[in-house]
């Protein structure tokens, strides 16, 4: 479904992606892990066309997507930080994003799921951080796309919403969607991820299931296995 070949990206003198190759098959939850600054967000932003790579190719659904924009209609993206125009109401924001995407949406179900009905006519500037993140999640999941990209989806969520979020992710997976998640919360990875993609120094350092990772690093829990991966490279 996604095929990334020899992707390079430099920011000034800093090399972030250094000949990255990645092949992601359709369906399942992929956790993109790596230490801070390993290029997780850059990788995702390359996929979305927000960062323009120095060289390399990204193929999505048999189409080279560099310098194109129509393909983004087939991707749902949850950005790390939720910040919206302060003077628009939640309803207007939902309408605006629906307006930008020529495809069906179902916001109603999600709105009642996260219990934000009472906020719909409130201005976005008056909402708390957690409520904004809920709106952010609704905006992401209200469209039906084959690829869903979540960048640190759990920030600021209360436990109930976190459970709801996990439920939605599982539902989407059951529909055969491909879900990419970056996170630092290992319990979440352990719970939902089918495969782990571990980035280090701008390259894929490990790709495989959680069990494979544990076996390879001879650790019993995921947190230590990941720590082990990071340390190994540093020595």
């Amino acid at each position, binding site marked *: 479904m996604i095929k990334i070949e020899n992707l390079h990206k430099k920011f000034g003198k800093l090399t972030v992606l250094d000949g990255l190759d990645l092949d992601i098959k359709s369906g399942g939850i992929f956790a993109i892990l790596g230490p801070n600054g390993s290029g997780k967000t850059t990788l995702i932003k390359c996929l979305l066309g927000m960062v323009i790579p120095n060289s390399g190719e990204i193929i999505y659904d048999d189409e080279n997507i560099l310098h194109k924009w129509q393909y*983004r209609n087939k991707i749902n993206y949850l950005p790390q930080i939720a*910040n919206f*125009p302060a003077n*628009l109401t939640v309803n*207007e924001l939902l309408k605006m994003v629906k307006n*930008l995407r020529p495809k069906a949406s179902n916001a109603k179900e999600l709105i009642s799921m996260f219990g934000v009905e009472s906020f719909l006519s409130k201005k976005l500037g008056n909402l708390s951080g957690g409520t904004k993140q809920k709106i952010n999640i609704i905006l992401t999941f209200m469209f039906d796309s084959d690829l869903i990209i979540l960048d640190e989806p759990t920030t600021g969520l209360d436990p109930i919403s976190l459970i709801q979020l996990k439920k939605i992710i599982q539902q989407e997976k059951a529909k055969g969607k491909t879900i990419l998640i970056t996170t630092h919360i290992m319990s979440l990875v352990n719970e939902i991820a089918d495969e782990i993609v571990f980035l280090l120094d701008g390259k894929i350092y490990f790709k495989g299931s959680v069990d494979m990772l544990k076996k390879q690093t001879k650790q019993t829990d995921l947190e230590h296995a990941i720590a082990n991966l990071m340390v190994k490279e540093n020595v």
Partner: protein
Amino acid sequence: MYKILKYSIYDLLRSRWSYVYFFFYLALGFVLLFLNNDVSKAVITLMNIIIVLTPLIGTIFGVMYYYNSKEFTELLLAQPIKRNKIFMGQYLGIALSLTLSLVLGLGIPFLAYGIFKSSAIFDFGLLLVTGSFLNFIFVALAFNIALSNENKIKGFGYAILLWLFLAVIYDGLFIISLLVFNDYPLDKFSLIATMFNPIDLSRILILLKLDISALLGYTGAIFKQFFGTNLGLFSSIFALSLWVIFPVFRINRKLKKKDF
């Protein structure tokens, strides 16, 4: 682009600052008219304020809006829409809402005073047109600065410097150069130097239309010869348009290679 423009205008028109800006012009218009009791004089005083204030507010608003909506812009960038449409929508949104505050804020008091019966209607119209031009020019320049600087503080700093340079320092340098090269014919030089500063250009355009150029001496006569004619009017409006087109063009070029 129109979708983005529509919502950024929705957002901005409800912002407190748009109201503050609108009521400021409204109050200014009423006070000047009823104190001066003369439309032409009010237009001159207004010109002095507009020519300095609109660029300042335009730059600050432009830079502030860009940095404030950065995260939301990232969300928009992930939608199926071209980059330049997002930024052009936002740019037009800011420039239009500022222009609306200006035109309505000044238009209402002048209408109430009976501008249509006055002979100064053309001067007043020209004042609003140049004010609007200055809005579009300085918001575009502000976007250029913000796009080139990831660092907010630096961006604000450069924006203020730009305003200070064009509104104050440029004139200083201009006058110094006129004094130093007093012995040479300077009319062509000053005419061209004026074109390179949208604030000076607007000021002279209005001053000469107001027919007080006699106060400006010899150079004033040359300027009157040029700016006072229709050719001068059109070529200076053309120059102001270029001041909009080039920064907008650069925004679009910069966007093609920019990483967010």
